[in-house]
């Protein structure tokens, strides 16, 4: 068996893994190794050829491949080693990774600490159960994106897109420009899933209809998709009778959400969080196995890669300190809880050590769109941090910093409540 020894091993070479690896090096870890199953680094960004990345991290609008290239260059400069075409199959308790490598065959990587950054995959038709036949012509939006942008394949001529996530909207524009006709983008919720910017630039610019509170109720076609039935839904998301509409099309794209790719994590017995479908972590992105850290989409689905890079640096630095034996001691812990209006908070735990001036960043999402409001972080019966916002949207992640010295008691609750807007 091929054997690799390193201080920090990073599983997955997308933007999360790249940032974590570079940060680990800068923190002083000598040997940092990225293990990536694809033939090249960059993760999902390689196929996201549109612009709109890096506005907060680099203060510049980059395309996905350009954003990835910046981090690949940094990793090269920092002498991060890379094993591509290598898939991690198992994570052992003692921080050994069992991998299958195209070049070396069965490979074992032994590390002082591990960063998990496997990203996520798309929800498929199976996970949303649409009735009807099983013809060709049904793709997840990301799979269609890869076919078009990386493999030069034609996907379809007349398209209906289910789900108003960013990937779906971006594909609506891409396919229109490539000569296809996009009949409609159908969204079951009464509000947009993705960013407003994408609605304007991908749908409105091309007069593509957006049907909110609608869903695809049936797929028709034997060999190939021939059309789909679309129906309006009520508040309980149940189809409303008499609102059926048939769209003739040869392709249905699904942009119905992403699922963190956590088979490795769960199989290693690491504690998982129910709503994020990622591991439970503390503010250092440390999982229930102290030598294992997690960041990026494998932890919780991110809409902006800039957040991924920032969060992954925290994981990379902490993993390096763990491997070097300089990871601080925890004196007490507090659980982060989602209060009113909040769907989830990540990290789920705070570990408080000697440094009470340390601040921890809490990332969270609201449950439903809202106007003006106030974010409150409470602990031990006191408000320890608060901020006014003029609006919030489930599709856009919010964050809030907390000073650890302010955490009293064993819970920290984040809530967002509406406030009257004064003119």
């Amino acid at each position, binding site marked *: 068996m091929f054997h690799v020894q390193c201080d920090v091993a990073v599983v997955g070479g997308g933007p999360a893994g790249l940032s974590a690896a570079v940060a680990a090096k800068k923190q002083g870890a000598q040997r940092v190794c990225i293990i990536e199953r694809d033939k090249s680094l960059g993760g999902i960004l390689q196929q996201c050829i549109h612009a709109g990345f890096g506005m907060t991290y680099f203060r510049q609008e980059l395309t996905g491949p*350009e954003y990835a*290239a910046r981090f690949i260059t940094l990793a090269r400069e920092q002498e991060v080693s890379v094993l591509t075409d290598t898939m991690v199959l198992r994570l052992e308790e003692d921080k050994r990774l069992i991998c299958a490598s195209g070049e070396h065959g069965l490979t074992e990587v032994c590390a002082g600490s591990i960063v998990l950054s496997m990203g996520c995959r798309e929800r498929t038709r199976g996970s949303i159960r649409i009735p009807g036949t099983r013809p060709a012509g049904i793709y997840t939006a990301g799979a269609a994106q890869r076919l078009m942008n990386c493999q030069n394949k034609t996907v379809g001529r007349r398209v209906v897109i289910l789900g108003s996530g960013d990937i779906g909207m971006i594909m609506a524009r891409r396919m229109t420009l490539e000569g296809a006709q996009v009949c409609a983008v159908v969204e079951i919720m009464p509000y947009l899933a993705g960013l*407003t910017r994408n609605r304007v630039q991908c749908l409105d*610019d091309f007069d593509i209809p957006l049907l909110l509170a609608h869903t695809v109720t049936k797929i028709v076609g034997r060999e190939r998709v021939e059309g789909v039935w679309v129906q309006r839904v009520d508040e309980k998301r149940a189809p409303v009778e008499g609102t059926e509409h048939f769209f003739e099309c040869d392709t249905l794209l699904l942009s119905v959400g992403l699922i963190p790719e956590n088979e490795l994590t769960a199989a290693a017995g690491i504690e998982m969080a129910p709503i994020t479908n990622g591991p439970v972590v503390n503010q250092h992105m440390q999982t229930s196995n102290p030598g294992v850290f997690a960041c990026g989409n494998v932890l919780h689905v991110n809409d902006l890669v800039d957040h991924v890079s920032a969060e992954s640096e925290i994981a990379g630095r902490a993993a390096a300190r763990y491997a070097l034996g300089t990871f601080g001691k925890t004196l007490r812990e507090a659980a982060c809880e989602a209060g009113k209006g909040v769907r989830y908070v990540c990290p789920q735990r705070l570990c408080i050590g000697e440094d009470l001036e340390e601040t921890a960043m809490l990332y969270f999402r609201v449950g439903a769109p809202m106007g003006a409001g106030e974010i409150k972080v409470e602990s031990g019966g006191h408000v320890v941090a608060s901020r006014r916002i003029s*609006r919030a*949207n489930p599709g856009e992640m919010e964050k809030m910093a907390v000073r650890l010295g302010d955490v009293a008691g064993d819970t920290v609750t984040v809530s967002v409540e509406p406030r009257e807007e004064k003119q």
Partner: protein
Amino acid sequence: MMEKIITCTVCPQGCRMTVTGEELHVSGVTGNKCPRGAEYAQSEFVCPVRTATSSVRVEGGVRPLVSVRSSRPIPAARMAELVELLRGIRLEAPVAMHQVVFENLWNSGVGVVTTAEVAKRRSPQTTGC
């Protein structure tokens, strides 16, 4: 006088603005919560521009396509025209990052550059990296 609803995309607020004006002249903007919105509304009303991205064929590379972008935003109305123009282009591998595809598109001073690298495909008999 023409009235147009424009959603501001400068920040995530996404203000819905009503712009009134005629051809190249804007006489009023309402619904914007800050001055940046008015500026955006002005340019959207007169001539909306977008960064164009697409991909171009590559011969002899490890991948059949390379992604490209316009060096500056171009008029949204000419996006399809540019994509059509790019369909006829073939690049020879190796392709470098930010390699120039068009230097001066439509004499507008805007260029088109690649946004990724594509290495040359190795002939089957050579091995190693």
